């Protein structure tokens, strides 16, 4: 269904032929910056995750149980599980479902319950309700289930167009090229975290001026280069922390932190826990690798959670 290409971090989303959306429930630990052509709604059923999404600023968007966020097509974003036992519901659908769009443009939604600035006209719980209903229907195999999940999917689309703040945007010519460049830079950062003067070597590697890099990143991700490097360090640290055989000192070095103290401080301020506490928390949970670093979630209890959010 879903495949990850490390080069470019473009996530291809394929839909089952009988349903125009992809629906899955998962536990998110961490996912590097990536983008896709589909809209993605992420609803938190349990625990807490941070979403890194430039349109809401450089700070991570903290989503708690009951919160929901929409990622627009071709927007670069990242995810980070703050509670290791978080449970998230993702619904991904193609922009073609919203056609025809006035003037042949694209809907660009602002829907994020962690952001006070873009309140929808409908209650935020309506969107959580819609996606939970879709997921519940998706879990059943009755003959009506297929129709029902389509019905709820279209309810969701109608509620988005009716209630969410949105802009219509014309396709801009160079956006996709810029995005590819940003993804290459992001990949370069991941591979060279420990190198000195990383910023300088990026400019040399990609033939860009400091200002050029700044404008590019600001435009595509809403982040500065420093913020992007910080995030990459944190992501890498999280992933290295899974391997208990690696010492914190080594992790700090490999991630390019100037010292163990800095590593602790930065990690604690971003994740709310120290590296050591984070490592302990992980141990308590069984971990299975899945595409895009979403951890496949044990089906146990998912139905209960969905029922709970579908009722509210």
């Amino acid at each position, binding site marked *: 269904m879903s495949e990850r290409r490390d080069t470019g971090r473009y996530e291809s989303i394929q839909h089952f032929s009988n349903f125009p959306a992809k629906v899955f429930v998962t536990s998110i630990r961490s996912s590097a910056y990536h983008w896709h052509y589909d809209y993605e709604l992420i609803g938190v059923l349990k625990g807490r995750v941070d979403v890194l999404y430039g349109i809401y600023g450089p700070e991570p968007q903290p989503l708690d149980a009951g919160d929901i966020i929409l990622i627009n097509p071709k927007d670069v974003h990242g995810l980070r599980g703050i509670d290791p036992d978080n449970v998230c519901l993702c619904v991904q659908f193609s922009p073609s479902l919203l056609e025809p769009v*006035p003037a042949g*443009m694209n809907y660009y939604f602002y829907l994020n319950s962690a952001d006070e600035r873009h309140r929808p006209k409908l209650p935020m719980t309506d969107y959580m309700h819609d996606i939970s209903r879709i997921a519940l229907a998706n879990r059943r195999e009755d003959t009506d289930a297929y129709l029902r999940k389509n019905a709820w999917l279209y309810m969701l689309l109608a509620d988005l167009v009716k209630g969410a703040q949105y802009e219509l*945007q014309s396709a801009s*010519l160079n956006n996709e090229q810029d995005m590819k460049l940003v993804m290459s830079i992001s990949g370069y950062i991941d591979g060279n975290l420990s190198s000195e003067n990383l910023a300088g070597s990026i400019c040399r590697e990609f033939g860009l001026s400091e200002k050029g890099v700044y404008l590019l990143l600001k435009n595509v991700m809403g982040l500065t280069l420093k913020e992007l490097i910080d995030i990459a360090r944190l992501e890498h640290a999280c992933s290295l922390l899974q391997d208990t055989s690696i010492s914190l000192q080594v992790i700090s070095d490999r991630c390019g932190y100037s010292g163990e103290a800095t590593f602790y401080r930065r990690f604690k301020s971003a994740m709310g826990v120290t590296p050591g506490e984070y490592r302990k928390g992980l141990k308590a949970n069984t971990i299975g690798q899945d595409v895009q670093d979403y951890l496949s979630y044990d089906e146990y209890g998912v139905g209960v959670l969905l029922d709970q959010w579908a009722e509210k």
Partner: protein
Amino acid sequence: MMSTGLVCCWINGQKNEGWARMKLTRKKRLSYTSCAEAIVNKMTLEEKVGLMSGDTSLQKITCEKQMGVHWNQYPYGAGGNQRFGVPKILFCDGGRGVVCGVRRATCFPVPIMRGATFDVKLEKQIGHAIGREVRAFGGNFFGGICVNLPYHPGWGRCQEVYGEDSCLLGAMGSALIQGVQDEYVIACVKHYAFNSMENSRFKVSIDCGVRTEREVFLRHFKECIDSGAAAVMSAYNKYRGILCGHSEYLLRRVLKGEWQFDGFVISDFFWGISDTESAVTGGCDVEMCHASVYGKQLLDAVRSGRVDESLIDEAAMRIVRTMVAFDREFSCSGQKAGEEVIGCRQHAKLALRAAQEGITLIKNENHVLPLSRNMKRIAVIGKLAAEENTGDRGSSRVYPEHVITPLEGIVKKVPGSEVVYYDGDDPEHMKRLAAGADAVIFIVGLNHRDEGEYKQPDPDGTRGGDRESLRLHRSEVEMLEKVGDINPVSAVVVMGGGTVLISEWEQKISAILFTYYPGQEGGTALAQILFGEVNPSGKLPFTLPAEESDLPCVDWDAAEQHYGYYCGYRRLDKLGIEPFRPFGYGLSYTEFTLSEPEAIWDKGRLSSFVTVKNTGTAAGTEVVQMYAGFSRSALNRPVKILCGFQRVRLKPDEEKRVRISCPGDRLKYYDVHSQKFVLERMETDVYIGTSASEKDLLKKTVYVDG
């Protein structure tokens, strides 16, 4: 120079001058009199009454509506006689095009926008296009020549007329009539008369002084009759207590008597007449479009002696003469009426041109417009940007194949830029958007919910009708007040069918355009003007006062309403009130200089000359206007009135000497005692310039004598 002069003759509607090319003149039609008399003489009473009655019932129309057939989707029939080969009236409504069909007809800009073009030649071409489409839909009668003068711009149907001035209404109405009738389609002038209130149209009785009646409200109707209109529709409202459809004074004495109208009068639909005897005696020839007051009722009235059969003969003769004349001449012309003309490319081009010429630029500080086409990010804000806003949803609604919205027009015009649209709900969102864009275009104003024909309420309770306030919606005013000055490169596009007062927010915005309801190609025309591909040349066909209190008082729900002598710019002139923008005002991306004015009175005509030079850097069009003033009159007369106008296209540095001329009749006042139009022999002011404001006019005087 010579061609300029000839155009002037047409626009001033002199009887036999310039109209000679019209194929179905009054003279031509009168040549069918004996033929018509012969037919009528052989007809039975039933047949004659049949000619006078509609055959589409209200019940049928209502039933069809429930089944999804819209008003006038096909031509509505009335009268006709198979035995004598008299065709039925096949009525097609309209104004901004032909109402018939679904997603087919060409939707032109509404007449108020065509008024803003001051382009009579273009209006005549639009008339041809409409005439061809009427024929192609199977019709032979166009009921969309609306020339009621708005007494107050709150009138919900201002959009259906050419503006607030009698000269403009007469000139544009005449041009449309000529175009339509050149295609052998009967042009029907409406609503005769005083129909300038909508909500109370079925009950209100209008009263006015005799001079007001003749000089202000009827003058352009007469011009349309002189230009050859073959049919007239009476109004719903009463005049001095009598239904216009029953008014012997309006229909028999003035229209058919004094003006020697040779065609026939139809009632406005269903409610235009209410009493058989009064309607026939009054001079209403056809009941539209059912047979309730006429039909069997009329037959009974004649048989019982309540109505003299000679009245029936007269009406029948008018109907037969007109219908037969058009039918025979159409057959002789060999003209085809193929459906391929409906919504064809050529008609779409005319619709585009009318929008290009009509869009009116009323403010452009720091030359904010035109916008560069190389902008990276353009914000378009306001719900109307993405709406197919072609005007009201009443009986003049046209159903075109496509409508280019402002947003679509802009997106297509700048494929290299990122265009972002936002509906404007949240001021904070808008502020962020405006601050981050290279230019902001606000699209604000009115749609069918706010004004237009009074109709069944929409689900949200809106009914069109008259406007209680001439300002924008509160939400739009707040939006412009809060966000208008965030980005210095901002333009506001005002949509709507008439005057919209803008004084409370205009200081915040550098550029303001009026686009009225710009028709199916409106979005394209708007984008062409915003990005400088077309230079704006439209002129306000109405005054933009600073305050509503500068206008006369009207109670939109009144049962009785008095129309005073002064309204529009004539009123503000007389009271010495400076408007926010004067009648006839409109900016261009270039500059024009006028010099060496001259005025002469010769052989009963007033002519003026002026040299117009394009002193700017872009090719452009100026509308030169001539006004006559009566400051030395011993009577109560306006400061000035429009007497003629001329569009002049000039390249940079090019200059032309323009002549504008009008018949002396235009200067006359109506003398109550002799009951005639009289010329005042005196030194008369002649103004020539680019708007109705004295600041934009050069003044001369000329001695006017008989």
